[in-house]
C-alpha cells in the first residue's frame, strides 16, 4: 500500500530548505560539497599520519589522529548526503556535456568505493595496499566530483552563498 508521493513537492521542499540558508539550492549544494572536500583533505592527512608518514608535520598522538580520521570521515559522509540526494534523485544521471557526463559517471561510483573501503577496514585480512587504494580512490573521486560541480559553479556561475 504505497501512499501517493507528490514528487514535485519533495523537490520543492528540498529547495525551500536549502534556500532558507543559501541563495539557491545549487549554491547550497556547492558549499556542502566544498565542506566535504575540505574534510576529505583532513582524511588524507590523518591517514598518511596513521601510516607513519608526515609525523614531523602532525605532532599529535596516534589515538588522537585516529579519532580525527574517524570523525572527519563521518562528518564528510554526512555533508555529502544532501548533495547526493539532490544529484541522484532530483537531477539524475545526465550526459549533456563532458563535465556533466564525467560528474555523473564518477558520482555513480562514489558510494560504491565508500562501501568497499568500509569492508576493507572492518575485515583485517586484505593485502595492505587495499585500504590506501580504496581511500585514495575515494578522495580522488570526491575531488573530481567537486571540480566538475562546485568549482565550476563558483567560477562560471556565481561565487557566493
Amino acid at each position, binding site marked *: 500500500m504505497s501512499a501517493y508521493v507528490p514528487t514535485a513537492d519533495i523537490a520543492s521542499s528540498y529547495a525551500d530548505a536549502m534556500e532558507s540558508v543559501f541563495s539557491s*539550492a*545549487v549554491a547550497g549544494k556547492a558549499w556542502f560539497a566544498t565542506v566535504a572536500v575540505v574534510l576529505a583533505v583532513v582524511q588524507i592527512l590523518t591517514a598518511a599520519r596513521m601510516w607513519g608518514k608526515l609525523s614531523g608535520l602532525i605532532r599529535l598522538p596516534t589515538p588522537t589522529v585516529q579519532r580525527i580520521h574517524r570523525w572527519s570521515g563521518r562528518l564528510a559522509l554526512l555533508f555529502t548526503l544532501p548533495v547526493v540526494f539532490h544529484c541522484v534523485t532530483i537531477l539524475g544521471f545526465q550526459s549533456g556535456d563532458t563535465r556533466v557526463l564525467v560528474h555523473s559517471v564518477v558520482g555513480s561510483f562514489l558510494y*560504491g568505493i565508500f562501501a568497499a573501503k568500509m569492508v576493507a577496514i572492518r575485515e583485517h585480512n586484505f593485502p595492505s595496499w587495499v585500504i590506501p587504494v580504496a581511500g585514495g580512490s575515494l578522495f580522488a573521486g570526491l575531488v573530481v566530483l567537486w571540480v566538475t560541480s562546485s568549482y565550476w559553479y563558483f567560477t562560471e556561475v556565481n561565487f557566493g552563498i
Partner: protein
Amino acid sequence: MPEEGRPRRWWLLIGLFAVVSLAVYGIARLQPFEPSAPPAAAVPAGDAANGETLFVAKCAGCHGQGGAGGGIGPALVDTGLDAPSVAGVIAAGRGAMPAGLFTGQDAADVAAYVAGISGGGATPPATTGGATTPAPAAGGTVQLTGDRLTGIRVRLDQPAPVSWGVWAEGPAGTRRLASIPPASALVVVDDAGLGPLVQGVDRFTVGPTADAPALTAPLGADEAGRLRTLFIGDPDLPDGASTLDAASGQVAVMRDHIRFLVLARQERNLANIRFHGEHMVNLAYGNPPEDVDGNGDPSNPGDGVGLLGPEGGRPGYTARLAATGPEAAREADAFTLVVAEIATAGRECGAIATVEASDACVATIGDRSGELRRTWAALRTGALRSATIALEAP
C-alpha cells in the same frame, strides 16, 4: 596482517562496490523526484522588472547580459520562448543548466523577464531596442536576427486585425517570410530559409496582401551595406570577416593570452610574462605592433586591427561597433575601459624586471578576463540590436 585462517572475502568487497554503485546509478536513472514542469496555468504572473534584477544575479553569467549569449548558455533574445516554458526550464534545469536556480514568485518574475527579451510574450523592459521609437498608432519594428541575419522578428504596435503576411521585396521579386495570425502582434522566424535578409532586399512589408501592405520598412542601400559589413563580411577586414565575427575572435584571442600570461607567472617564466604582456598591448592597439618586451621582435597574436585600434589611426573594432547605434555606443565605453586597463597593465608586465615584480600587473589582467567577456557580450548585444528597422505606413 591476515588473521588466522579466515578467508579473504574479496567477493564481499567487490560485490558491495558493484551493488552500491549500481544502486546509485539505477536511482539516478530513475530520478524519482524529478520536478515536473509546472503546468502553464500554475505559473503566477511575473514582474519582469524584478525579474531583470534576478536575471543579472544568476542567469547572466551563462546567458550573457540581457540574455544576449556569450557565456556557456545559449542566447535567449529572440528565441520566442513564452513564460511557462521558461518557468519549466528554470524548475527542471536543462543540460549544463542547474535545476531550481529560482522557485516560486522569483521564478515567475524571471520567466516574465525572459519571455519579454525572447519575444515570446510579456512586454520587454523599456530599455531594449535602441532604434525603437514610440510609434504612432500603427507601426512597429522589423528586427533581423541570427548571426547571419537569416531570421526576422516583427513586432506590431497594434495586433493584426486579420491574418497578415510578412514579405521581403527586392529586384528578384517578393518573397513571403512569415504569417501573423489575427489578433497577434508578434511573429518570430528563426531562419526564413532565404539566406541573409540584407542581400537583394529593398524593403520589408506587412499587411493583408503583398500588393497592399499596411506597413513597410524600407532597407536603404546604405543601411543594407552597413549591416552586411557588420554581420556578413567586410572586405576591409582580414579574411573579409564580418565585424562581429572578427571582433569576437579577437576577444577570444585576448582571453586565451590572458590565460597564458597567468600561466607564465605560475611557471615563473619571466620571458613569457613579458612576451604575453606585450601581446595585451598589441591586441588592444593593433598594428604596427610594439616591441614592449624588448626582445627585438614586436609580436601580435591578433589580426592587427586592434580591439581599440591604433590611437589616432584607423578605427579599431570598438569604434566600428559603437558606430552601429546608441545602445552599442553606450556599451562601448565599459568595454573600452576594460581593454585599456588590460593594455596598461600589459605594458607594465611587458617590461617587468623580475617575476615577483609582475604580481600586480598579472593580477590586474587576470582579474579583468571575466569583465572583458561581460562587457563584450553587452557590446555585441547592442550591435545585434542595431539590425532593427522601423515599420511605418507606406
